[in-house]
């Protein structure tokens, strides 16, 4: 492995995350996966939205885009469609991705556009100090759920799968080796890939729900999960209320940019004598 910090903008450190936050663990896993695959730093674009998760990209030494709340995938779609040779990775959180950005999430998945999305799911809005999110479990506390969350949570992976993503996996900031391995596979998938990572927010989620510090919260997350392979041998009562981790779904589906390129080739065969006004098209060499 290259020097780990070579992937960081060292002058931008230290980061703004709280002590005990899981986001650094997830960012580390992503960097290790990129390093293992030997991807070209100059051809990677990292895109994020708003929230704690989205601050990750600012510390990383790639072309990085910190966008508006919820819209990372829409910006990323523009980048990938305009220049398919780039490797586009989105770092997002549960609120950013499944609340304000939910529409872009399901449509990016439906298109199966070749973007790798890392959802850092800490079940809370951390940046705004602890409001409940679409992934806060029913009954748990947030600053806007002082009597317990009335709503029920999304299953991010089921949502991605149903919407058309071609690679869906889940890990946690406890299962770091598994997480790195899954991100690596997601990066290799040509299509829309989602790796949901359950991660700890001790400052707001852990404290508000009286779970304890980072270690207790990590253990709490670990106990909520069951490995997908092990789950096949377990009786249903052992799986009740548990989230599966591991590779959850993989499918061969046409990728958006590839399909658009095919259509373009067909159109150009028909209109190869087209003399339309554009003289900038030679710049568009993807």
């Amino acid at each position, binding site marked *: 492995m290259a020097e780990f910090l070579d992937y960081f903008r060292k002058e931008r450190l230290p980061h703004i995350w709280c002590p005990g936050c899981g986001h650094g663990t997830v960012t580390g896993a992503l960097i290790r996966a990129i390093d293992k695959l030997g991807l070209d730093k100059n051809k990677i674009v990292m895109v994020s939205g708003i929230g704690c998760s989205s601050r990750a990209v600012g510390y990383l030494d790639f072309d990085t885009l910190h*966008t508006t709340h919820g819209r990372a995938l829409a910006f990323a779609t*523009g980048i990938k469609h*305009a220049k398919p040779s*780039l490797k586009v990775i989105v770092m997002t959180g549960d609120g950013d991705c499944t609340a304000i950005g939910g529409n872009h999430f399901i449509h990016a998945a439906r298109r199966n556009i070749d973007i790798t999305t890392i959802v850092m799911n800490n079940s809370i809005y951390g940046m705004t100090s602890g409001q409940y999110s679409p992934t806060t479990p029913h009954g748990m506390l947030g600053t806007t759920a002082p009597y317990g969350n009335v709503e029920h949570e999304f299953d991010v992976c089921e949502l991605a799968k149903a919407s058309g993503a071609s690679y869906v996996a889940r890990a946690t900031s406890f299962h770091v080796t598994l997480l790195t391995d899954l991100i690596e596979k997601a990066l290799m998938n040509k299509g829309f890939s989602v790796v949901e990572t359950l991660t700890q927010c001790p400052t707001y989620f852990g404290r508000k729900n009286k779970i304890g510090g980072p270690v207790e919260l990590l253990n709490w997350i670990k106990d909520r999960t069951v490995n997908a392979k092990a789950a096949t041998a377990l009786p249903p009562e052992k799986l009740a209320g548990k989230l599966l981790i591991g590779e959850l779904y993989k499918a061969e589906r046409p990728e958006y940019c590839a399909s658009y390129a095919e*259509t373009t080739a067909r159109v150009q065969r028909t209109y190869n004598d087209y003399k339309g006004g*554009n003289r900038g098209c030679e710049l568009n060499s993807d």
Partner: protein
Amino acid sequence: MAENAKLMQGNEACTMGAIAAGLQFFAGYPITPSTEIAEMCSEELPKFGGKFIQMEDEIGSIAACIGASLTGKKAMTATSGPGFSLMQESIGYASLCEIPVVIINVQRMGPSTGMPTSPAQGDIMQARWGTHGDHQVIALAPGNVKECFELTFKAFEYAETYRVPVIVLADEVISHMREKVILPNPSSYKIPMRAMPKNPAGYKPYGADPDGGVPLMAPFGQGYRWHCTGLFHDESGAPSGKAAVAEKLLHRLERKIEKNAQAMEDYYAESMDDCDVAVVSFGSSAMAALSAVRRARKEGKKAGMLRLKTIWPFPDQALRRLCASAKKIIVPEMNQGQLVLEVERAIHGKAGVIKLGKVTGELFHPDEIYRALKEAF
């Protein structure tokens, strides 16, 4: 008939103007009365390797355009009132992050769903102040089909030169009207191109003259590895919460447009030299106004016509200069009085300003403006 003469619609002319300027990417969402632009882009762009995408909403559309622009491609979206409202947050993003993008807003009756197929000019202030915070935009208003071509072309020129979002404020009549247009010879086009850095070493993504300089823009994917954020940022692109950094950045962004405002002034003036009463208008309202002014002139009344093509930055200097002899200024517009506020501000009491708003979803009839002229004399 000249080879390049074509009967076309305003929306078609916008699309062709964009393609002439080197459009390579269009993202949009269907909305009346702008949809023909998306339809035509979906058909034309693949022919020369450009990219079209129909996004899930207008928020996604402008976001995708900004993303595409960051890879070095010329990007555009087209919409109308409700969609334009949805785009506002990311227009602010493009403004702060200095990302060239062109937005065609074919104005229709509002607020809300309003009268989707009726013309209006109610987005003058939304174009200027729609997104939160102090910021600068450029907005151009075509007054006929040919200008849809020309001003869309010019919109790219400004977007690329100044690294700002540029809005083309068309309206339902201009966009759906068909006229004969003689297109310029393609070899005469000077394709606008943003200034790019030559070497990643020492690249400062936001390094520029503090007095309105435009930084060099590196396309993503070419080894510059820079950070683009909607947080206030210093010259290196790093987020900053420092007062001095914020002040310096916003000052430069303001000066960038302010100091070039006079160069961007664009208008059509007729009989303004000696006029007693001037009519100042834009877009389709100006068509009726011109007819009324000519009728008044024929009757010996000293009426003048000033049709603004550049709306933002507001052409203060041109207005004051051209209206020097006017005692009164009538401002017909299809809203309850938006442009008139700017005319009043710029003319600063040197002439009486008369508001002539119309919000019925119908075009002005020349008689309505003629009557206002007669009253003014």
